[in-house]
């Protein structure tokens, strides 16, 4: 059983719009439906809308794995109950791993190193970020579709593979190294007397898990006070 190039391209392009109609009610529900409908054969489209109308929430780059596996299940004629059961489990697992891998590790680590390079060497920094980030991003978007289709339910075991675990570890190292570089390379020309207490203050605010809104408000106030003083 093969997915075919046309279906692959359709799924890939619709996955880029997975969050277009994001709402608190269904999160990515409509986006996932559009993704599925672009991948299944024509005779099943009506029943798919009935079966999957409603809530769906996963990491936007990870949706390809779930879509690929779901389309394979439809191609093989599996029951809607089985497919729904898989989607319920897979969306949570891929969401937490995707958030951890991309939002908490790859993106901030690459941004940190690109910011340092950008300030020191100009345009190379932003270009480096765009290229390196999108290599990982598009790899998961594209490989996720084929792996999901080929492995079907077993796609969930990929979460323990090196593409997730090893990559996360490598980017934690890059992030840690970049934080060290930031401390010396960018901060060397400025006053450590002000930098160190401010850093401690922000660490305390972040570690105590104050909301991001409160931290930005505190920062806003701080900028005004520093400038006025």
């Amino acid at each position, binding site marked *: 059983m093969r997915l075919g190039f046309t279906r692959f391209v359709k799924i890939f392009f619709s996955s880029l719009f997975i969050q277009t*109609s994001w709402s608190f009610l269904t999160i990515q529900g409509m986006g996932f439906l559009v993704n599925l409908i672009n991948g299944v054969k024509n005779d099943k489209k009506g029943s798919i809308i009935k079966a999957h109308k409603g809530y769906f929430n996963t990491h936007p780059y990870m949706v390809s794995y779930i879509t690929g596996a779901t389309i394979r299940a439809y191609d093989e004629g599996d029951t809607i109950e089985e497919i729904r059961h898989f989607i319920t489990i897979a969306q949570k697992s891929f969401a937490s791993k995707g958030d951890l891998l991309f939002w908490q590790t790859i993106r901030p680590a690459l941004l940190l190193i690109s910011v340092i390079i950008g300030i020191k060497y*100009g345009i190379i920094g932003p270009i480096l970020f765009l290229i390196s980030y999108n290599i990982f991003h598009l790899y998961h978007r594209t490989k996720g579709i084929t792996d999901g289709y080929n492995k079907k339910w077993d796609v969930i075991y990929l979460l323990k593979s090196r593409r997730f675990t090893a990559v996360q570890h490598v980017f934690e190292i890059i992030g840690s190294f970049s934080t060290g570089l930031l*401390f010396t390379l960018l901060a060397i020309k400025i006053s450590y007397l002000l930098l160190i207490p401010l850093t401690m203050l922000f660490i305390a605010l972040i570690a105590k898990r104050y909301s991001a809104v409160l931290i930005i408000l505190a920062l806003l106030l701080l900028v005004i006070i520093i400038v006025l003083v």
Partner: protein
Amino acid sequence: MNVFLISLIGAAIILDKYAFGEFGFSQPLISGTIIGAIFGNVTFGIFLGALLQLIFLGGLPIGSEIPPDGQAAGIIGCTSFFILAKVNSLEHALFLAIIFALSGGLIGGTMEIHARRFNEKLYYLFAKREEFLFPIHFAGLVTAYIRGLCLLLPIFIISSILIIPDAFPGLSKELLTIISVSIGLANGIYLFIKKTTMVYLIIGVVCGLVLLAL
């Protein structure tokens, strides 16, 4: 550059935040570069975008939580700086641009909540007319674009008419760097530093010192 045109471009960049692709074009470092290129000063665009990026490095859109809009803050900060700097001193323009960026980030987050609540109406519409799934889903692009436009346009119009008196306080590049680097360091330490990665932080500090010495 016309404020209407730059608002249209800014709102298009914001689409990358969640409505289309999420390639990273809307991150302050990249949007700062694009806006810098539009205004003919890429170097300062990268610098300002990078500093705003450090401030919003830790704003993680996990689950259904919506943090302040760092992407909008980047676009607002860089664009309003270049607009303000035409008739004001660098320190004055920088101060107001940062105030606009941080406030814009907070307002943008709130507006995003409203835009996503509006998208619920799109879902109800789809529930009634299932055959229109595709146009209803893609109408979300219009919601996201209008949110961006409504956020950016008023701030850019205000920036274009503001002339700041000399007595007004200004923000130096050095002071902004201290504030941004400190919050960037705090974000980096919070996100990456564990017992297992501590050694790489020290290697990073040492490498930085070696690079400075060379």
